């Protein structure tokens, strides 16, 4: 284990990657739209060997007291024990909570969903959008895959029928969840003095720091989150911001 890690670090220190990608190159991405019939929206995203299934469930609820005419967004994540021998069943771990909250903030702060359009009766009934991220296979960079899956699932989500104050499950209407933009994150890690986009699980295991940047279609940044025990210099962050906006544009084309 220690030898293997040393080997991974040695490669990274030369600026190279085990899979021969460039430092700012993503692995192959496959997006399956609507692989499931029951949820209102769904998407399966693969980045390299990482697999994330996103499901969107809609339901009608009372609005929050401080947002009487707005729908509700909730994002949850489960690191299924399928995905890694290190993931265990049980209450959500720190990592699962952070993942869900970073995806949540990226969508929320970008105002991607027009929540006012999800109001049925002000102060009484609004649509609640539950986005659940189910991590099936951990090959690294779970946040970017999750955010891609969440946005892809929201893009194909349709409201179910709502009649006589009740949701009629199984009968989808043609009305889409009102999506204004396509928020995505781009993750970089730091190994030695080098920065790598879209890290594999191996790269993550030897990285000393990590930063996720949420971007919008217009190139604005809508969320940031630093991880890992080490820090970044301001100059490193400048470089990462430019790269993240650029890579975000590339990813967005695949949606």
């Amino acid at each position, binding site marked *: 284990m220690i030898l293997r890690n040393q080997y991974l670090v040695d490669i990274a220190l030369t600026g190279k990657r085990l899979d021969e990608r460039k430092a700012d190159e993503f*692995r*192959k991405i*496959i997006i399956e739209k609507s692989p*499931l*019939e*029951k*949820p209102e929206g*769904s998407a399966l995203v*693969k980045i*390299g*060997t990482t*697999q994330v*299934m996103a*499901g*969107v*469930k809609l*339901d009608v609820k009372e609005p929050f007291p401080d947002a009487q005419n707005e729908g509700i967004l909730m994002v*949850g994540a*489960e690191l*299924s*024990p*399928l*995905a*890694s*021998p290190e993931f265990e*069943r049980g*209450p*959500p771990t720190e990592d699962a909570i952070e993942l869900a909250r970073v995806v949540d903030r990226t969508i929320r702060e970008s105002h991607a969903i027009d929540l006012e359009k999800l109001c049925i009766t002000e102060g009484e009934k609004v649509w609640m959008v*539950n986005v*659940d991220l*189910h991590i*099936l*296979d*951990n*090959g690294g960079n779970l946040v970017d895959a999750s955010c891609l899956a969440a946005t892809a699932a929201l893009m194909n989500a349709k409201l179910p029928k709502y009649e006589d104050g009740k949701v009629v*499950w*199984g009968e989808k209407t043609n009305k889409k969840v009102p999506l204004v933009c396509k928020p995505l994150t781009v993750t970089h890690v730091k190994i030695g003095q080098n920065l790598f986009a879209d890290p594999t699980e191996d790269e993550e295991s030897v990285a000393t720091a990590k930063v996720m940047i949420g971007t919008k279609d217009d190139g604005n940044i809508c969320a940031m989150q630093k991880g890992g025990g080490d820090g970044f210099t301001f100059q490193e962050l400048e470089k990462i911001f430019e790269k993240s906006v650029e890579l975000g544009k590339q990813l967005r084309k695949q949606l």
Partner: protein
Amino acid sequence: MKRLDGRKPDEIRPIVMQAGVLKRAKGSAIVKLGRTTAIAGVYGPRKLHSKHQQDSNKAILKVTYNMVPFSTDERVRPGPSRRSTEISKVIREALESAICLEEFPKAVIEVQIDILQAEASTRVAALNAASIALADAGIPMKDLVSSCTAGKIEDTYILDVAGKEEDVTFCDLPVAYMPREKKITLLQMDGDLPVKDVKNVIQLAIKGCETLYERQKQALKEKWVGDLEDTAKALGLSNISGGKD
């Protein structure tokens, strides 16, 4: 008799079975029965850390059956329920005698099953997937375990109860079966039927298990052929083009 969804009495919904669908797990499989979709992954045998739980004669088998939040009409709260705890138990007890646990004393073998979409017979789909995933992981087994439900509507015994049939069947009876040993390793029933009918329903379910057994073996064969081709390619023995992602 024509069934509500047009199937014949002894017809199972469209079946999809695929082995080796995950990279990280040692073995894995996805199984679909109609829309019901189960994905299973296997880790181990690995040493059990907790000495308290170890068995010095054989490996411990742990099975978790889990519904993902978007698998049903109303969103499911994540985490175990009383229902999922019971189903995890009966699936484990259906698999135990098929696995050569005694070859791995003090170890644990973990089977995780996520239900991605639920529309009747989730425990059956889960069990079929778990069985393929265990074989895919190379865990030594006496036999594959296959599983199917049966029921009775009016005068007809029906296989693989699903959809609106659940409201009119006299019983819902899932069975797990090891065809080579002719052993029933899961048996549950909700319903109200005379003994004679119960026996007939069980026999129909066994017939369903035998059908699914063949499909399980086929899914494993396809995976192994694929693996062989990969190895051949890796050794330069093949000229098949196209890369793995």
